[in-house]
């Protein structure tokens, strides 16, 4: 058994994790990045559209306050407003940082950043690198990280446990897939940057590794989650694979049509039509399907058509090359003369590990778990509220990644890692995992259970929710939790045992799923991405509150916390 000692341990190597590592390393900390992916392959790499930051306020008459306001309104006023201010002020510095390490941002002929206008943003303020922004960011920062001698990457290491004792963080335990062993990482400071959990759902734009188990593990370690019921569905994911077709398509003028060839958005959002906010468009597609106006794919999925046939082909080739490529490869259609089959898919988790606006991870009472930060999609800083605006997430990852990394390095200075505590935790984990591997167990297969989870989440935590559906899904979930104890791992080996990884992931996912469903059930209003057929309006009198989730005696419990309304009073959200 091995326990390695560091100043700072970062969990996750997406944009948030790597940005944290760089920030901490620059302050002289010895940093371990522990991550379950290999190389630069975290899902940040698939971000397409761009990153929001007010880089040239004079060029467009933009301001930091306006960016913050748009974010607050986009989040349907469930946003902690000072967090939005932090995002707006810090994001431009991050764009410059990424520029200086080699991200090939699109530039205008005068050498300034090119800007795009995203949904819900009142000015063009999204910088981008073609339609592959995440790819270029990740390629640059991954190589940059590798240039630091004081950052060590531990790849294909699944973190199975956060070690928290006496209100403080001490390290993590990880399963090293390549060597087939458990390893401990002891450090006085940690940053959790594990991204979203799209794979709890059947259809998602996220990669296979975005399973979201860390939400559950965090609760096990005594941390609280917040606002988990707010799950963003992107309206245009390719059928059947769920690969994202960027909002840029509709920004360029694409239509959405049903099986009668009708531009149905005119019945849902007569003014903005296809460019209404994501939640509105996703719901419209859902309802069209319900009414039998959708197409039916050979996989049984209902979908609508994204139509770009009226656009100038040359312009499409210039501006939407990825759309052409993806449609051809993954749906076998040529968008220049066929409809692109699309439907909504899970895209982003607004909620996550509850933090304050500096990114410090909190327990259910709002106390800081000393030494621990959370950043990126895994965290809930309160910046996105009930709905995230497109391109605010990459900004969030970079901003809070840096803030967390810097603070963690400062905190770690002069503190010693508690190696023995972590060694104990490794031993306990070792026994638990051996137990799993040895278990004779019943006939449940992990992939079978996962499929059931994905279906029930769509039923009870989907685009349109109701009390009945959520109650039913919660019942099924309880059943799944029981059956997880009967799962059989047929792979007896330890090296690259994917089944073992999947079982460990599923444990955390089931806990996370429960928070989503519980929130979907309890929140008796409709706000942002959370829509209830039985409570169709926003209710600020009762529900202008955050939902907080935590484990108590092994059960998921929930309570409420006030929203920080410091600048802008809630108003109707019209576009």
């Amino acid at each position, binding site marked *: 058994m091995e326990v390695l000692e560091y100043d700072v341990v970062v969990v996750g190597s997406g944009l948030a994790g790597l940005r944290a590592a760089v920030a901490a390393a*620059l302050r002289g900390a010895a940093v371990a990045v522990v991550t379950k*992916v*290999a*190389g*630069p*392959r*975290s*899902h940040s*790499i*698939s971000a397409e559209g761009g990153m929001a930051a007010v880089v040239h306020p004079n060029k467009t008459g933009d301001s930091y306050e306006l960016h913050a306001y748009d974010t607050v309104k986009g989040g349907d006023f469930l946003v902690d407003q000072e967090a939005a201010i932090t995002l707006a002020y810090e994001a431009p*510095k991050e764009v*410059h*940082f990424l*520029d*200086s*390490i*080699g991200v*090939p*941002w*699109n*530039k*205008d*002929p005068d*050498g*300034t950043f090119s800007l795009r206008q995203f949904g819900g943003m009142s000015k063009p303020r999204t910088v981008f690198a073609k339609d*592959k922004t995440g*790819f*270029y960011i990740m*390629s*640059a920062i991954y*190589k*940059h990280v*590798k*240039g630091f001698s004081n950052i060590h990457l531990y790849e294909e290491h699944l973190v199975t446990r956060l070690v928290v004792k006496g209100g403080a963080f001490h390290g993590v335990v990880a399963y090293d897939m*390549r060597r087939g062993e458990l390893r401990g990482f002891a450090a006085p400071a940690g940053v959790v940057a594990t991204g979203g959990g799209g794979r709890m759902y059947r259809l998602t734009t996220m*990669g*296979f*590794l975005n399973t979201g188990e860390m939400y559950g593990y965090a609760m096990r370690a005594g941390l609280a989650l917040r606002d988990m019921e707010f799950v963003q569905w992107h309206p245009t994911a390719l059928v059947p*694979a769920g*690969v*994202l077709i960027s909002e840029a398509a509709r920004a360029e003028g694409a239509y959405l049509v049903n099986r009668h060839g009708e531009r149905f958005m005119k019945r849902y959002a007569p003014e903005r039509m296809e460019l209404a906010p994501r939640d509105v468009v996703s719901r419209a597609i859902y309802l069209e399907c319900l009414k039998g106006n959708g197409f039916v794919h*050979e*996989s049984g999925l209902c979908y609508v058509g994204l139509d770009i046939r009226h656009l100038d082909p040359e312009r499409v080739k210039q501006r939407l090359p990825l759309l052409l490529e*993806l449609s051809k*490869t*993954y*749906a*076998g259609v040529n968008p220049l003369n066929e409809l692109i089959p699309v439907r909504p898919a899970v895209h982003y988790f607004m909620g996550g590990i509850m933090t304050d606006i500096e990114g410090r991870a909190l327990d259910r009472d709002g106390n800081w778990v000393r030494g621990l930060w959370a950043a990126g999609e895994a965290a809930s800083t309160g910046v996105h509220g009930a709905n995230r605006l497109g391109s605010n997430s990459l900004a969030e990852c970079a901003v809070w990644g840096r803030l967390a990394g810097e603070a963690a390095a400062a905190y770690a200075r002069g503190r010693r890692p508690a190696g023995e505590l972590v060694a104990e935790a490794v031993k306990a984990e070792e026994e638990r995992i051996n137990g799993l591997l040895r278990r004779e167990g019943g006939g449940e*297969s*992990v*992939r079978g259970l996962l*499929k059931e989870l994905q279906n029930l989440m769509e039923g009870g935590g989907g685009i349109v929710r109701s009390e009945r559906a959520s109650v039913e899904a919660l019942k099924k979930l309880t059943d799944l939790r029981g059956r997880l104890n009967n799962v059989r791992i*047929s*792979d007896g*080996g330890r*090296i*690259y*045992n*994917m*089944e073992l990884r999947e079982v460990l992931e599923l444990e955390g996912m089931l806990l996370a799923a429960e928070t989503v469903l519980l929130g979907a059930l309890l929140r008796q209003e409709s706000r942002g991405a959370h829509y209830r057929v039985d409570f169709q309006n926003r209710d600020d009198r009762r529900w202008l509150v955050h939902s907080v989730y935590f484990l108590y005696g092994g059960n998921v419990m929930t309570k409420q916390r006030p929203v920080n309304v410091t600048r802008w009073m809630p108003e109707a959200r019209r576009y």
Partner: protein
Amino acid sequence: MKSVVIKVKRYDGKKTWWQEYKVEAPSEKVSVLDLLVKVKEEQDPTLAVRYSCRMAICGSCGMVINGVPRLACQTLLSELKAEFITVEPMWNHKVIKDLVVDLEPDFEKVKKVKPYIIRDIKEIYETDKEFGQKPEELDKYYNFAYCIQCGLCMSACPVVATHERFLGPMALNAGYRWSADSRDQGWKERVKIIDAEEGVWACHLAYTCSAVCPRGVDPGFSIQLLKAAMLRKAKRP
């Protein structure tokens, strides 16, 4: 529905064997990755495969399919035009398990060429300074920056197969991409590394690297551009 037989070369740390699976493909448009995932779901959860994005951008799923190094998630059944598919781990790499190989040596080689902007550290972290890059400066390296580090070119290269220290197309392409960036000042440093027997001069111009690259990066061409710049003694390639 169509029945397909997939023959997979497996390895469990001790022995290697071929295993056949028969799967029902729901349509011709599914990828080889979809089929492998289906095998894992329905028949054999012990099969090890590395994948994540399933949209040909993360670079995880390189393998040799019907004798050609390719991304499994980008290779559709309809293109293969075969009822019988063979899949083996990427050549020229150590196998960890089944289709999962060790890419660490490739990444180490990339690291050797200093794949980042080299200039005064203060300039990098002094955040409000903008380096200003024009569209035409961008065009010089944009395509070469699209490498997803999948390692397929390393797997296809006949020189890599026999010359262990050869930096290879993945790393040399990175050497070109970073040196050709107008923000970079590291060409002199990098020449020391790549103007060597295990650098560009080992390349035999087989061009198999460019032929298999799933992203059209053309690493073979970047190697030639590096050679040309060195022969010209240019300030940057």
